[in-house]
């Protein structure tokens, strides 16, 4: 941050971004805030309701249940994908022709439209004609994700691991490839074990990208909508109805604008606060 000089005219350079993002973010956000404090009976007639919707949402079992499912889902996802992704990145070759092959193949799931991911796993996991479903049943597991909540959760989590672990791998790999060769050479001369190399060189150097990986995976898994929606439709029952699926049902399905507005704001706030808290805690060491 050193060496920058103050120039208020720089505002002109950021103006297009500010205008575009403000148009896109502020107007809809105002709309949401507006709804969340009012009652509508159609025909654009609104009545001031104060914090009624917020109280209703916060006391509703439905919201609590979706939020609970969301938290459990995101926790499981993070607990699997972060260590798994780091482990894969650590065991990847650092240079040579195989690096490109690995990166291209691993990045592939990241660029498949989310509904296609859902559809793909839908087909892959079907108990009668899907490779996964058929195999699991042949191995003696009673598996049917359209009927059993446990199977559905297993499938949704496996799908997310399939879809997103590569992001963690790519980030970790980027962090690893920025470590100068001299660190490994010095460690060799110092007689460090390979575990010590991971513990004292590789993990500390990956810290920054791991923070990014954690934040991105937290945000995106907390907002997940399309893949489970296509795969299970939120079912069986409400077993895989996560926050976004629930919100879309309320907003676009039932057109309950007030509760939808209130849910939206609470939802957004939870993500913002968690990111801020995590980031502050993670960077505390650096600041000292």
């Amino acid at each position: 941050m050193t060496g920058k000089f103050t120039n208020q005219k720089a505002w002109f350079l950021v103006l297009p971004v500010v205008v575009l993002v403000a148009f896109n973010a502020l107007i809809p956000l105002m709309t949401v805030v507006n709804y969340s404090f009012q009652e509508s009976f159609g025909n654009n007639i609104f009545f001031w309701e104060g914090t009624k919707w917020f109280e209703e949402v916060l006391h509703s079992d439905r919201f609590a249940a979706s939020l609970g499912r969301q938290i459990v889902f995101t926790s499981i996802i993070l607990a699997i994908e972060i260590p798994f992704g780091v482990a894969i990145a650590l065991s990847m070759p650092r240079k040579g022709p195989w690096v490109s092959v690995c990166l291209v193949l691993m990045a592939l799931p990241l660029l498949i439209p989310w509904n296609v991911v859902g559809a793909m796993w839908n087909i892959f996991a079907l108990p009668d004609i899907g490779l996964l479903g058929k195999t699991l049943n042949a191995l003696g597991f009673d598996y049917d994700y359209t009927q059993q909540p446990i199977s559905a959760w297993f499938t949704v989590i496996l799908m997310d691991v399939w879809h997103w672990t590569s992001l963690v791998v790519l980030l970790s790999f980027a962090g690893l490839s920025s470590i100068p060769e001299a660190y490994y050479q010095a460690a060799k001369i110092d007689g460090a074990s390979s575990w010590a190399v991971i513990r004292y060189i590789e993990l500390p150097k990956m810290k920054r990208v791991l923070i990014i990986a954690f934040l991105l995976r937290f945000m995106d898994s907390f907002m997940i909508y399309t893949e489970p929606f296509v795969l299970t439709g939120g079912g069986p029952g409400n077993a895989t109805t996560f926050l976004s699926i629930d919100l879309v049902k309320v907003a676009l399905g039932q057109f309950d604008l007030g509760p939808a507005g209130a849910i939206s704001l609470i939802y957004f706030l939870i993500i913002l606060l968690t990111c801020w808290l995590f980031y502050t805690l993670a960077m505390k060491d650096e600041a000292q």
Partner: protein
Amino acid sequence: MKRAKPFVPAFYIVFLMLPIYWLLNMSFKTTNEILGSFTLWPNNFTLENYTTIFTDPTWYNGYIDSLTYVGINTVISVTVALPAAYAFSRYRFMGDKHLFFWLLTNRMAPPAVFALPFLQLYSEVGLFDTHIAVALAHALFNIPLAVWILEGFMSGVPKELDETAYVDGYSFPRFFIKIFIPAIIAGIGVAAFFCFMFSWVELLLAKTLTSVAAKPIAAVMTRTASTSGYELGLLAAAGSLTIIPGAFVIYFVRNYIAKGFALGRV
């Protein structure tokens, strides 16, 4: 020279490829074979599903629509992000840090929150069911990311480059286009890649903001899944085709992906 455990990534890649293989497998099967038996590869190999997609305008228009709004979005996002990223990387100005943070918070907004307000906003301004509506909506999520990535790359370019150019009598726009952009072309590639990626894979907003004229391929697929019953082969073929643009883009930026991640600043 270093500990190599090639079987770990190999194993992982096999795991990644299995569902994709299954999708391809399905796409070359007839509906009868799909429903009638469980086969590990197509016994009655057919291209019929692909023929349907390439001859039926509702199908192939879906691809054209998707690629159109993805393209518009990438161009808009990168174009407006460039000057902004330059401002953040070179100057200090009133509210710069808050602005940067505010931009990033938009990346944390769930699309589901914006679906309904976007629908109303774009209907109000008469953009509903146009490519530009989807492109603008996606820009909300892509611009912050593009600014962030580009700022990282630009901070890596020494300030002396700017100063030398100004001393040589370049005006700002001429310097920016002739000298600065070529210097960070890799960063632009990475930013464009991420914009393409998000816009190409997102469905909720794209589906909500379109009905007929600009319907993305992803939405055409959902409709097929729900209305025309059990045409799994067709669905699999359509899905397989959506993998191709992504694979292309990854191949071209493969050397920059890892770097792009590393250079962004938290």
